[in-house]
């Protein structure tokens, strides 16, 4: 079966081509069948490949299938080839599996949309690119997939392009992502120059060999890994490039579930895990990864505490959970990071689809202040939502408990108490804002407008069925990684060939009682968060108002997302407006947000300068040449 892994990305590509070119001429049902069928077939091949991979002995579980040599010139060689190892096996299962479920959901959610064929062709193209990204056997091919998912993300965020906010959000996402890509592409060039190859296997072999012999210095590794991390920060929405993700919620909700929660945004985590050998050789980069991850985890969680838009809460929650994954990678617990990536894909997709179901029932309303009491109207959505929330909050035996606890444990033992403290605090916030969401949406008095209330209904079967599957996975997904009991941590065992010895972090042995104790602590933290939410929003609903009144400034700051968009504006846009054109060139890498918002000012300023220089007078043009001449002469003197 392994010889056929190229079929996995091929099916969605075919689906994209058919729906893209003929979608308008065939019936809606056929479009849906083609799109879902393509991803379904991918999933079947992925499962079969996974089974074949399991039959090999652990040390032989790396399989490369080279389709053709893409570029072969002098010392430079790149192939179109796919690599299946435990890491990419988990990724393709998640991508095609969750992708398949979301495709089915979409047939219900997008049913009445005019752009139905366009939507499914984009979604197939996305699946193709994402599978290409995780299956690539070299950096350049991975980059192609990386750009492909970026393009699809842009197309799908701006899917309802008649809305200005949607097309703006699409552009913002694309440009911010390009900032990240810029780091990634520089890293690839540096890798090529350093190792003379861009093939994963060769680079990683050369890296460990040459660093032992001292041929390549730690500085080089640090440079490469930090540049790669710039790419990861952009794609996975970490500080400071996270601003595009909340805006990306302008896209259709299944898109948010698939691209902006389950798969694409985790590409950065995958890339860091894939390059674990390089990162292990660069301690500074590891510290940066852990630091950025921890900071993002708590920062985004705190914003999530006060948002009133149901999808925005989930968006900030995603940013925060991605922070956890980077925190895990940064302390060397790559397995824990990938484990959390997987469980997160299940429960976060479930949450997003659940919120989509709610929005669908509410006729497009997303403000939680206008919801409440929905539990009675949509039981299936409610129960699946509760299960997924318990999973993300970290209540055993749901999936999130095992992965999150693993991360916190590793942060404590392999990192330091500060990282653990931040992670634990963020976990508390997570439990709080998730149950705040549930209580505001599904419990209590109905605050639904009368007009809308008449139409409240449970969503159709093709929308609730995916919810049930994902909820089921959110329950059992964690059992592949049960700690403490020998032989039960399957995922750790399975991934250990990829992460060598270091992924598991065997180096430090702590007592079982300590680990059990810490487990209890995280459960208590989660329960405390849930209880606090219960107290504030059910027992005494007056508390939130009193709190906001008492701490007005703090509340405002958080509600307005720490004014980061405004700060970016003030730092970038204003100086440009004041004519300080040179400033933005230095700053745009750091905070591109301002450039996007400030493009209008920029154009205005430049056209002013232009009117003076590009006057249309030949004499002025000749004068400019003379100036050039003088400068060059002066330079040579």
């Amino acid at each position: 079966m392994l010889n056929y892994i190229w079929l996995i990305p091929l099916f969605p590509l075919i689906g994209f081509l058919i729906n893209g070119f003929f979608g308008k001429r065939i019936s809606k049902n056929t479009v849906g069948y083609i799109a879902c069928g393509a991803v379904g077939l991918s999933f079947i091949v992925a499962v079969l490949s996974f089974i074949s991979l399991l039959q090999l002995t652990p040390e032989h579980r790396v399989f490369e299938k080279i389709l053709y040599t893409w570029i072969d010139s002098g010392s430079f060689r790149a192939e179109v080839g796919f690599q299946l190892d435990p890491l990419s096996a988990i990724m393709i299962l998640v991508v095609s599996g969750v992708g398949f479920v979301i495709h089915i959901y979409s047939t219900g959610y997008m049913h009445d949309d005019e752009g139905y064929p366009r939507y499914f062709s984009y979604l197939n193209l996305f699946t193709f690119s994402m599978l290409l990204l995780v299956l690539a056997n070299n950096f350049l091919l991975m980059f192609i997939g990386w750009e492909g998912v970026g393009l699809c993300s842009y197309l799908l965020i701006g899917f309802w392009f008649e809305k200005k906010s949607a097309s703006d959000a699409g552009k913002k996402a694309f440009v911010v992502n390009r900032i990240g890509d810029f780091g990634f592409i520089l890293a690839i060039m540096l890798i090529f120059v350093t190792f003379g190859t861009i093939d994963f296997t060769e680079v990683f072999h050369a890296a460990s060999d040459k660093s032992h012999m001292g041929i390549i210095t730690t500085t080089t590794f640090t440079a490469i890994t930090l540049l790669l991390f710039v790419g990861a920060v952009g794609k996975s929405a970490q500080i400071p490039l996270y601003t595009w993700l909340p805006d990306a919620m302008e896209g259709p909700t299944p898109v948010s579930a698939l691209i902006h929660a389950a798969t694409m945004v985790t590409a950065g985590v995958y890339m860091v895990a894939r390059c674990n050998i390089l990162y292990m050789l660069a301690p500074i980069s590891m510290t940066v990864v852990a630091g950025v991850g921890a900071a993002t985890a708590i920062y985004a969680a705190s914003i999530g505490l006060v948002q009133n838009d149901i999808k925005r809460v989930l968006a900030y929650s995603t940013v925060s959970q991605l922070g956890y994954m980077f925190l895990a990678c940064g302390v060397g617990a790559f397995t824990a990071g990938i484990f959390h990536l997987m469980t997160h894909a299940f429960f976060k997709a479930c949450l997003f689809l659940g919120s989509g179901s709610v929005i669908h029932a509410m006729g497009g309303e997303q403000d939680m202040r206008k919801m409440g009491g929905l539990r009675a109207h949509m039981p299936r959505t409610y129960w699946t939502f509760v299960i997924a929330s318990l999973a993300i909050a970290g209540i055993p035996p749901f999936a999130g408990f095992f992965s999150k606890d693993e991360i916190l444990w590793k942060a404590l033992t392999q990192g330091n108490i500060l990282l653990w403290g931040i992670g634990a605090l963020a976990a508390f916030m997570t439990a709080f804002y998730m149950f705040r969401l549930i209580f505001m949406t599904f419990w209590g008095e109905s605050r639904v407008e009368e007009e809308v209330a008449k139409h409240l209904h449970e969503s159709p079967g093709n929308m609730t069925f995916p919810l049930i599957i994902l909820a089921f996975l959110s329950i059992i997904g964690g059992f592949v990684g049960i700690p403490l009991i020998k032989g039960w941590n399957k995922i750790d065992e399975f991934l250990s060939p990829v992460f060598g010895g270091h992924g598991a972090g065997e180096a430090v042995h702590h007592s079982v009682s300590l680990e059990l104790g810490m487990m209890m602590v995280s459960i208590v933290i989660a329960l405390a968060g849930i209880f606090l939410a219960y107290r504030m929003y059910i027992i005494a609903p007056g508390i939130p108002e009193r709190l906001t009144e008492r701490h007005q400034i703090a509340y405002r700051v958080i509600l307005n997302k720490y004014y980061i968009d405004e700060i970016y504006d003030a730092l970038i846009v204003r100086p440009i407006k004041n004519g300080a054109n040179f400033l933005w060139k230095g700053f745009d890498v750091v905070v591109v947000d301002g450039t996007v918002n400030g493009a209008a000012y920029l154009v205005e300023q430049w056209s002013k300068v232009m009117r003076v220089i590009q006057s249309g007078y030949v004499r002025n043009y000749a004068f400019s040449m003379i100036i050039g001449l003088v400068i060059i002469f002066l330079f040579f003197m």
Partner: protein
Amino acid sequence: MEIIAPPIDLTGIMPMIIIAITGILVLIIDLFLKERSKNILIFISLTGVIIAARVSFSQYGGIHYSFHRTFVMDTFSVFFNLIFLLGTALTILISANYIKREEINHGEYYALILFATMGMMLMAGGSDLITIFLGLEIMSISLYILAGFRRTKKESNEAALKYFLLGAFATGFLLYGIAILYGVAGSTNLKDIAASIPGRLFDQKPLLLMGMALLIIGLGFKVASVPFHMWTPDVYEGAPTSITAFMSAGPKAAAFAVFFRIFIDSLGNMEPNWNVIIGIMAVLTMTVGNVLAIAQDNIKRMLAYSSIAHAGYILVALVAANSLGFTSVLFYMLAYTLMNMGAFAIIIILGNKGEEHLNISDYAGLGFKRPLIAFAMSVFMFSMAGIPPMAGFIGKFYIFSAAIKAGYIGLAIIGVINSVISVFYYLRITVIMYMREPVREFNPISLSPLIILALIISVWGTLHLGILPGTIIEFARKSTFAFF
């Protein structure tokens, strides 16, 4: 006194002879043609171009000097010849309908394009400053006329006159530079100059630097690098669209061929003296081109600034001055010719007589009304922005890799930042095509089989070079053996 007739060896200049004869044939036959049968000229010109390309291709490999070492036929010049001929063929294909529509369907049009092409080939193969200058002037004078070919239009006349005045100005610098180099080295032959430089560096360095500076200015003008770029937007905007397409591909490539040959072959020893100044020019050219392109509403002007920016990327490769850099330039020029010609072909397709629809907002809704044309345009825009899997991405990847390999990491970073900036305005075209309601009718559209052929070639080429670049890169790499 005995006069020995030098042996005349025409093999090296055979492709040029074919092109020149074709041009003269076109001129003569045109006299006997009626207005409606002028399509024969397209056929003749294309045949000439194809034969020349075939002959040129068969000459690939080895180095062959002729005319007292003033002309050389090596892999480098042959590769460039093929790029020129491709550009010329595409120009002829996209011109046919356009010049009929604009009522400038005169035989001289094709003849001048062919003569300009001959000039470029002389430039690429020139191994003597005088031959190079000759080629440059043959090309430039043809272009001055072509830029003003729409005689009845004010802008076209303005473009021609501006181009001519400033071009003459730049030629002055170039010629002065050649004279000074001759004064220092005692020869105009590139190899001889190179051989004499180490001896002169000691006592005549200021003069050498001065000559070199003047050459940089003269050639900098031709490749439109900052601050010698000011003519570009005005001329590109005013010239007939098909000629703008022509100018932005072949002549630019020819100027780069000369730039590279002189600065590596002749002045290679002085690299420490010129690399900083050319590096600065590269940075300025990329940045100014990209930033100003954002401000444009007119698509021809936007592409003019975009072509300035692309010149900047290529200068980065010149600074890198290694085999990888040259390979990337050859590849990039080919890719650029394809994608740029394609973009201009679409501009021509979307124009009507008298109304060219050059405003970017005129492209609104094209994606719904004309999906295939919009798709082709998106391919070209994505390629120019350097997004895989298009040709432009591979080209940029190679250029910046070359810069890193040569140790110019800063330059590579600035280049990549610039290509991020450029995404903004290329993407804007795509956004407008697919995400805005149409503001005008797209009927009638002047689609002729010839221009469709040009579009197919450019789309196919852009994608092919992006997805399967292997053979071409290898071909380009072998073509740099003339230097390394």
